[in-house]
C-alpha cells in the first residue's frame, strides 16, 4: 500500500556534471579521517591517543554530553594524528589504515528493542541516526514517534538511491526490520512518484510517493506533510545507505562503513559513482588528474547548496553521498548587475534570460553581489513548501527570540531546508547559518 502526496512550489537546479549511472570501486585509501564537525552539535571527547592501534569498530570519541553516543573507526590501523584548532577544538582524527581487523558482535536470533538499542549504541551505528528536531544525533533518552527514510532525492547532484541500494536490498530490508522493532510500527519510506522503485516490494514499510521539485526531497518537508513534529515529539531520519549498513551489521555482527559517493560537478572529467568507505581520502577516489583545471575548484562534501567545503587533500564526510567539485568564482564581472546582462550566470529570476539558455547550467561559487538588508519579500516562500513563514522565522533567529522561534516552527526545519533560499535570495542572506545558530540556541536554552 502506498500513498501519494504532492509538494508544490520549489524548483530544481539543473547543473552540468551529474554523475552517470556507473559504479566503480574506488582505489583503497591509505589514510582515513573523521571530522567531528560533520556531527552537528556533538562535542568530541577522545577515547584513543595518537599511535593507538585500532580495529574496524573501535570507538574513537564519544559525545561530551552523552557518553553513550560514540563514533567508531571505519578501518583498522593506527591513529596517526588528532588535529586541533583554536581552543583545542578537534578538527579531525586521521587514521593510517593497516590490516583488516574487526570488532565483532554476537547477534542473537531474538532481538528485543532494548537489545537493538544497546547494539546500535555499542557499535557506533547510533551516530547514523539523526533526530528531528534539530538534526542532531538521536538523543538516547528520547524515543521517536516515527522513523523516516527518504529515497526521493531532489537536491542538485543528489544520488539515485535505487541505483546504489539495488545490490544491497537484503541488507536494507534487514535494517528496516530491525529499526521498525524500535518503534513497533513500519518505517516511513518516501519514493519519487511515477518512478519504478526497488523499495516498493519491501516489508515493514509505509511507502509514500512524493511528487515535487526541490526541496521536496528534504525530509523536513516530507515530515511536515506526513506526520508534523510538535513540541516534545521526535522523529528519526536515516540515510538509505546507512540503513543498509545497519542491516549488514545485524547480519554479520561487524560494522560495515560502506559509502557510495556520487562524484559530481562541472569540473569533474568523468562524473560517476564510486564505492568506498566512510572517511576515505578524496584523492584516492578522484586523483587531481580527473579534474579539469585543477587549481581553481572548490571541493564540497555534499551538494553545492548545503554541503561543507573541504580541501582537495581532505577526506569524505561522515554522512554525505555526494562529492561536488565546481569552479571557484573569484572573478570580476563588469556591469554584471545590469538586468539581462551576463545571462550565462544561472538565475531563477526573470531579470535574466538565463532560463532561455540550455537546461543544464554551469555554476561557480561567486556570490554574484553583496550582502544587503532584507528588502525583497515573498521570494523565500517560493522555495519553502511548508506552512511556515521562512523570513519571519529567520528574523526571529536573528533576534534570538526563542519563544517566537518555537511558535514559528523551528522544530520542523533544519539548515539544509534553507539551501534554496540561500541560493535565490536577492539580499544574499546566509539563511542556513542563521538557522544553524538558531538551532544551537534552542539546544542550549531549551534542550
Amino acid at each position: 500500500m502506498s500513498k501519494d502526496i504532492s509538494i508544490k512550489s520549489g524548483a530544481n537546479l539543473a547543473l552540468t556534471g551529474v554523475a552517470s549511472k556507473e559504479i566503480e570501486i574506488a582505489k583503497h585509501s591509505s589514510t582515513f579521517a573523521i571530522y567531528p564537525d560533520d556531527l552537528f552539535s556533538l562535542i568530541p571527547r577522545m577515547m584513543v591517543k595518537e599511535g593507538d592501534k585500532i580495529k574496524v569498530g573501535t570507538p574513537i570519541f564519544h559525545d561530551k554530553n552523552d557518553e553513550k553516543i560514540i563514533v567508531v573507526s571505519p578501518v583498522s590501523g593506527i591513529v596517526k594524528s588528532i588535529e586541533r584548532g583554536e581552543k583545542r577544538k578537534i578538527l579531525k582524527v586521521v587514521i593510517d589504515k593497516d590490516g583488516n581487523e574487526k570488532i565483532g558482535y554476537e547477534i542473537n536470533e531474538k532481538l528485543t528493542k532494548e537489545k537493538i538499542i544497546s547494539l546500535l549504541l555499542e557499535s557506533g551505528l547510533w551516530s547514523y541516526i539523526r533526530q528531528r528536531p534539530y538534526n542532531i544525533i538521536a538523543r538516547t533518552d528520547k524515543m521517536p514517534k516515527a522513523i523516516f527514510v527518504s529515497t526521493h532525492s531532489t537536491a542538485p547532484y543528489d544520488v539515485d538511491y535505487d541505483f546504489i541500494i539495488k545490490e544491497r536490498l537484503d541488507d536494507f530490508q534487514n535494517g528496516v526490520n530491525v529499526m521498525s522493532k524500535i518503534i513497533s510500527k513500519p518505517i516511513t519510506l518516501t519514493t519519487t512518484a511515477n518512478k519504478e522503485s526497488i523499495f516498493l516490494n519491501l516489508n515493514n514499510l509505509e511507502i509514500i510517493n512524493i511528487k515535487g521539485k526541490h526541496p521536496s526531497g528534504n525530509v523536513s518537508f516530507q515530515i511536515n506533510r506526513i506526520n508534523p513534529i510538535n513540541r516534545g515529539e521526535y522523529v528519526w531520519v536515516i540515510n538509505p545507505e546507512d540503513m543498509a549498513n545497519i542491516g549488514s551489521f545485524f547480519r554479520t555482527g561487524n560494522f560495515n562503513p560502506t559509502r557510495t559517493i556520487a562524484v559530481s560537478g562541472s569540473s569533474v572529467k568523468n562524473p560517476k559513482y564510486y564505492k568506498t568507505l566512510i572517511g576515505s581520502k578524496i584523492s584516492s577516489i578522484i586523483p587531481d588528474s580527473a579534474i579539469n583545471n585543477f587549481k581553481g575548484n572548490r571541493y564540497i562534501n555534499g551538494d553545492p547548496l548545503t554541503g561543507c567545503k573541504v580541501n582537495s587533500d581532505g577526506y569524505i564526510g561522515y554522512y554525505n553521498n555526494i562529492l561536488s567539485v565546481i569552479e571557484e568564482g573569484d572573478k570580476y564581472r563588469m556591469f554584471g548587475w545590469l538586468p539581462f546582462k551576463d545571462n550565462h550566470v544561472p538565475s531563477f529570476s526573470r531579470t535574466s534570460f538565463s532560463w532561455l539558455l540550455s537546461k543544464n547550467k554551469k555554476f561557480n561559487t561567486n556570490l554574484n553581489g553583496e550582502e544587503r538588508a532584507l528588502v525583497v519579500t515573498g521570494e523565500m516562500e517560493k522555495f519553502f513548501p511548508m506552512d511556515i513563514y521562512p523570513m519571519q522565522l529567520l528574523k526571529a533567529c536573528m533576534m534570538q527570540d526563542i519563544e517566537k522561534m518555537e511558535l514559528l516552527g523551528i522544530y520542523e526545519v533544519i539548515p539544509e531546508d534553507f539551501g534554496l533560499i540561500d541560493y535565490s535570495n536577492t539580499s544574499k542572506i546566509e539563511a542556513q547559518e542563521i538557522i544553524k545558530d538558531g538551532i544551537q540556541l534552542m539546544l542550549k536554552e531549551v534542550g
Partner: protein
Amino acid sequence: MNFIRKNLDRIKKPFEKGGKLEKFYPAFNAFETFLFVPNHTTKSGSHIRDAVDLKRTMVTVIIALIPALLYGIYNTGYQYFIQIGLDFTFLDAFLHGLYKILPMIVVSYVVGLSVEFGFAVYRGHSVNEGYLVTGLLIPMIMPVDMPLWMLAISVIFAVLIGKEAFGGTGMNILNPALTARAFAFFAYPTYMSGDKVWVSEASNIDAVSGETILGSLAAGQNIDYSSMQMFWGSIPGSVAETSTLFVLIGAAILLYTGVASWRIMLSSIIGASLVGYLFNLWGANELMSFDWYNHLIIGGFAFGIVFMATDPVSAAQTQRGKWIYGFLIGGLCILIRVFNPAYPEGVMLAILLMNVFAPTIDHYVIQSNINKRKKRWEKLKVKTI
C-alpha cells in the same frame, strides 16, 4: 576592462583595511561594485548563488520608471506650450520638459546620495541601492514648478527621518519617496496644490487653467478631459504620474520580472473599483458620481499602486497580508478623494497610512499561522515555552 580593473585595484589600496582612507571604504566600494560585480566567493551556506542581487532588482525598477519619466518630460513641455498658446513640435515640448525636470533629478540624486554615502561611511556599512529608485521617484511625483531648494529639503527629510532614523534601507516604515512628497505637501502647501503649480511656469502666465482633474472635481467644477486623455496622460499633474498608459508599460516590466507584487497591484485595483462603484451608486456630488473606472486612470493612482504601494520594505510582507494591504490602499484612496476635498490626491495618504498599518496586518496573518500550530499542540497537550 582589464585596464580599468588594474587601475581600480591600484586606487583601492588606501581604502582597504589598515590603509589611510579605510574609513571611506564604503564610498569607494559603492563605486567599485557599480563598475564590477565583485569577485567575492561564498564563505558559508550555499556554495552557489543566483545572479540576482539588490542592484539588479533596483535597476529593474528604474528601467520600469523610464517610460513614465520620458512621457512626463514631454507632457511638461506640452502643457506649457498649449497653455501659452504657441505652436510647438514634439522636440520643443520634450526639450522644455528636460530643461525643467533634469535639474530636479540631479538635485534629488546629489542631495540624497550625499546623505546616504555620509551615513554609510559613518556607520561603516555598504551603500544600499534603495536610493537609486527613491531618488528618481521623488522628482517624478512633485509638481514641476517646485523650487529646487524645497526639493532638496524634502529629500533630506525623507532620507534622514523617513529612512536612516529607522536604521536604513530595509528598516523604514514609510515609503521614503512618499515621505518626501508628504513633507513638501504639508510644509509648502501653496507649492503643492492649486491651479498654478502643475503647469510649467504657470505662475508667470495669466489665465492659466492648470488645475488637476481631482482638484477641479473637489472644487465642484466640471472637467472637460475625455477618458482617453486621462489614460494617455495629456493632462496637468505631478511630473510623471499623469499617463496611465506609460505607467502600465512600467507595470508590465515589473510584473514580468517579478520585481513588484502583482497581488498588491491587483488588490488595489479591486479595492478602488469596488469603493468607486459604491460611490457611483450613491452619487451625492461630483466626486461621488465620477465614474469608478476613471478614478483608476486619473491622479496618481496608477503611478502610486504600481511604483509606491509595491515597495516591498514598507508594504505588507506576507502574501496574504499583501492582498489586504493592497485592497485597503485602493479603497482608502477613493475614500479620501471623495470625502476630503482638501486633499484631492488620495493615493499618497492612502499608501502612507497603509505603510503604517502593514506591520499590523502581517502580525495578524502570522498570528493565525502560529495559532494553527498551537492548536495542533493543544490537541496533544504540549506545553509551550
